[in-house]
């Protein structure tokens, strides 16, 4: 299948970035806007940055975050407060600086001649799909979005999706927004009824896997963005491997976006928390 990325890949670099905004946008979710001219200039949809949330021995490892959107010379990050690092991140104030490595990884690819794309987002899986939705729309690709979350207060990026997508269908566990239930019900319906040319998925691995199988049954090409624990983020340490039909690949450089059909779902994902 012939594919094309968006811009030509730029080499990752280390950049001192400045916090422009850091605010709560949903329950337990923050939006971090970082002034980072060089990364913003090169990043493609689906790529990520490796952030040093704080200096000092307390947070030895960096934390990887997808670039949700680019706004001028700034990148936007949607982050869910889960543990020590993201809690620390939620305390960063405007004007503070930290350092970021990016843009990193292989982003989403657009199959030649794709006219209609379905984006399936589970929870914070919406993060790496924001920039993708915008750029697909700009290219005249029809965008549908199937979005799931535990509840209405936990839904993110609503406005962005509403503004660029032809249709947005939502499912929440408690029915407080859209229909009650799993997003996989929505994705299955949308895959069958309006037959997209490509499906892009990000979310909990069980959900991503289910959607991938739906796409496969409908023989629609499907790409998934996977999370792994990452030390280096640049391809050196082999801590982030994903088992694929062609062997173990590194999520940080060979991914995080993979063609669904090559992924062996061996439960090696980050243990889910919620």
């Amino acid at each position, binding site marked *: 299948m012939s594919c094309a990325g968006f811009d030509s890949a730029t*080499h*990752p*670099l*280390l950049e001192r970035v400045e916090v422009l905004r850091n605010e709560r946008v949903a329950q337990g979710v923050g939006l971090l806007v970082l002034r980072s001219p060089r990364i913003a200039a090169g990043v493609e949809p689906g790529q990520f940055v490796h952030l*040093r949330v704080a200096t000092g*021995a*307390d*947070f*030895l*490892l*960096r934390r990887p975050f997808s670039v949700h959107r680019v706004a001028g010379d700034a990148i936007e990050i949607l982050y869910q407060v889960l543990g020590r690092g993201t809690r620390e991140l939620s305390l960063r104030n405007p004007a503070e600086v930290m*350092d970021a*490595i990016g843009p990193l990884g292989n982003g989403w690819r657009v199959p030649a001649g794709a006219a209609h794309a379905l984006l399936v987002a589970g929870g914070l899986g919406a993060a790496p799909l924001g920039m993708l939705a915008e750029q697909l729309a700009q290219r005249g690709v029809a965008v549908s979005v199937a979005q799931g979350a535990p509840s209405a207060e936990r839904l993110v990026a609503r406005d962005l999706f509403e503004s660029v997508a032809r249709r947005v269908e939502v499912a929440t566990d408690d029915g407080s927004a859209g229909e009650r239930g799993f997003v996989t019900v929505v994705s299955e319906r949308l895959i069958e009824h309006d037959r997209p040319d490509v499906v892009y998925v990000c979310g909990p691995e069980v959900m991503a896997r289910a959607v991938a199988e739906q796409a496969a049954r409908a023989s629609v090409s499907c790409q998934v963005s996977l999370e*792994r*624990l990452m*030390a*280096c*983020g*640049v*391809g*050196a*340490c*082999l*801590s*982030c*491997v994903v088992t694929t039909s062609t062997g*173990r690949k590194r999520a940080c*450089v060979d991914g995080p976006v993979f063609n669904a059909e090559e992924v062996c779902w*061996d439960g*090696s*994902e*980050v*243990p889910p*928390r919620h």
Partner: protein
Amino acid sequence: MDQKSRPATSVSREHAGVDLSVEIAGLRLRNPVMAASGTFASGREFADFVDLSRLGAIITKGVSLQPWEGNESPRIAETASGMLNSIGLQNPGVGLFSERDLGWLASQDVPVIVNVVGHSVDEYVSVVERLEAEPAVAAYELNISCPNVDAGGMAFGTACAPAAEVTRSVRAVTKRPLIVKLSPNVTDISEIARAVESAGADAVSLINTLLGMAIDVRTRRPKLARVVGGLSGPAIKPVALRMVWQVASAVSVPVIGCGGIMTGEDAVEFLLAGASAVQVGTANFVDPTATMHVLDGIAEYCSASGVRAVRDLTGALGT
């Protein structure tokens, strides 16, 4: 780009006075800062951040005879001032490694030390024999200290006899400088160091990781799929420094210090304790330019304290 050139010039300008070169096991190195095995791949991944020609040497990821799959995920866990890893020496095997990595490394102006692993003495020997044909290889580092594989690895490094045997056997098939990397998970590391020295090692490097474990109290399962893994980072520096100090006084071959080095001053501590060179590992994950920061830090320390040649620091600990 400027990621590279900035430190480069800063050194050449500010630290012009200091002689940073060191000689280890017949290898003359530009400076004492090496990238530690398994944390720098074969350097390519760091070429965007570091001018590789400014490194004393690159030590490759462990290379085995056949391709190794490595362990299941999760493979790492963050700990207080450190991290656990159980990568398990995943590597493409010496054949693919020679093609893919050595070819590229040959075009880089930096000494290449290949970290060698095996399930058996014969495998160590075969890997080295296979690499003898490769001109790009400057030296070997025998990894007899990896805690993350069942057969081989640390098994060779925790007793004198097997440590000596694998060293002797490899020694027999190469004239190239032979470094043996020691495990800290032993009662008496000096004894192991002496054993490999008399078996023909030209130098010893230490420490590899300390065997550790972490548990997720939420899931009540180990954080690593393999349960245990190797602890690295600043947390282990005091143990590493103590062992370097002990080994330096136990053997006469050069000692290469490693363990938790994040800054130039950390490196100077190892040199004072008796190391002739240092390896920077986990720090590369925190800051991809860490090796350059360490190098600049050493140079600054020397010029600030009137040290003409970095080798004068080796073993210069007062007591």
